[in-house]
């Protein structure tokens, strides 16, 4: 199908894009790589009066390391992020999530910011940002504000972004050198949206106890959720994967749709969390061995 007729705007600077957004509000759709907006336009799921194409705004395409965070511009293309040495070194969790995002051909055009702004419940980049404890940077004509990823996603395709704002950057906390990470998912075909995904980051103390732990699931609820794992801190890492898997399965409120029942999503949560935690533990132990 073909999209409805729309006005096309191609700003060359963020200031121009947000000026347009403040004028058009929710009549406008922001287009970057078009890997999610494109299909929605073509299927006429969305019928915007105006499309604001931000794909030529060069300032949105940078990856920069600061003292405690790495900032990725909203327009960074997923395959460029996958090739980035800085991200591989400083934000390994994102580097692990990216191969699960769509296909080679869609990663060549889809952006990091686009996936976050779109907020599909099972999208990988939003889940990675939630598990990392990252931040979404939003810009309007009047101000810039920063929203923690754990508060940004409200539900399926719904975020804290206001109609006059655009996502300009994502902030990823730098990983500790001894932190272990993992990302895993189940989809009908590789590259499809996940039925469920799980991701974990952790650090071990000297006596093999959990010193830091972050765990999240995607595709299970209407948004990526961080599982509350405070009560597990300080626990010995030995049998932790099984208990965390049980805890996560009990804490989610799964959705049900044509690709999976609620029960199946709980079952996947149990399996995927156990895998993610085990893989992250293994990575943390290997790193500790190497750092000692």
């Amino acid at each position: 199908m073909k999209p409805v007729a729309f006005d096309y705007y191609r700003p060359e600077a963020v200031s121009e894009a947000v000026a347009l957004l403040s004028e058009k509000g929710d009549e406008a759709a922001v287009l970057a790589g078009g890997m999610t907006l494109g299909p929605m336009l073509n299927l006429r799921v969305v019928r915007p009066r105006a499309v604001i194409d931000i794909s030529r705004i060069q300032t949105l395409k940078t990856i920069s390391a600061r003292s405690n965070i790495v900032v990725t511009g909203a327009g960074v293309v997923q395959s460029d992020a996958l090739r980035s040495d800085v991200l591989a070194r400083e934000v390994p969790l994102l580097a692990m999530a990216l191969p699960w995002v769509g296909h080679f051909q869609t990663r060549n055009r889809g952006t990091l910011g686009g996936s976050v702004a779109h907020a599909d419940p099972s999208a990988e980049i939003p889940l990675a940002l939630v598990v990392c404890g990252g931040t979404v940077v939003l810009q309007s004509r009047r101000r810039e504000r920063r929203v923690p990823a754990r508060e940004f996603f409200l539900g399926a395709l719904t975020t804290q972004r206001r109609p006059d704002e655009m996502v300009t950057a994502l902030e990823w906390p730098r990983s500790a050198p001894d932190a272990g990470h993992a990302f895993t998912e189940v989809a009908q075909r590789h590259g499809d949206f996940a039925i469920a995904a799980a991701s974990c980051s952790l650090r071990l103390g000297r006596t093999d106890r959990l010193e830091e732990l972050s765990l999240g699931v995607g595709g299970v609820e209407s948004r990526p959720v961080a599982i509350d794992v405070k009560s597990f801190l300080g626990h010995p890492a030995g049998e932790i994967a099984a208990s965390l898997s049980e805890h996560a399965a009990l804490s989610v409120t799964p959705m049900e749709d044509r690709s999976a029942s609620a029960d199946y999503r709980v079952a996947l949560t149990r399996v995927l969390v156990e895998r993610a935690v085990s893989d992250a533990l293994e990575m943390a132990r290997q790193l500790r061995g190497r750092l000692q």
Partner: protein
Amino acid sequence: MTTLHRAAGERFTVELTLNGQRRSGEAEPRMLLCDFLRHELQAFGVHVGCEHGVCGACTVLVDGRAVRSCTQYAAQADGANIVTVEGLAEPGTLNEVQRAFAKHHALQCGFCTPGILCSVTHFLRDIPAPDEQQVRDMLSGHICRCTGYASIVAAVLEAATTISKGP
């Protein structure tokens, strides 16, 4: 700096490089790049399947990268360097990848083939010596209803070997 604006329904000229030649045609804002390449520039090797980025038939090279041409718009490609299946080899000849496809029967109806050939071109430039898993991962972005993929995988792996040996 200025914002480019094209009104809904407005006809305007899009100029780009197609298979090494400067070309131009008329578009309106909602015109898909695949439709522009076919209807305005007669690049009929660009096949249009699902029109929402899933099947991979419309894959072309835009500035060297294999991408869907159905989920971007002609207006976005102004000034781009585009290669379609027509530009992968000299007219009337086959390149190494195409020869390997013929040898291994990596196509039957051929509808998905132009897109796959464009993907493979970019893929082998990035990963000249892929293993089977990497080839299958790249191919997951294409739907082929004839071959069952095994022959395509064999063709890509053989083409990689042939190209790396050199002429």
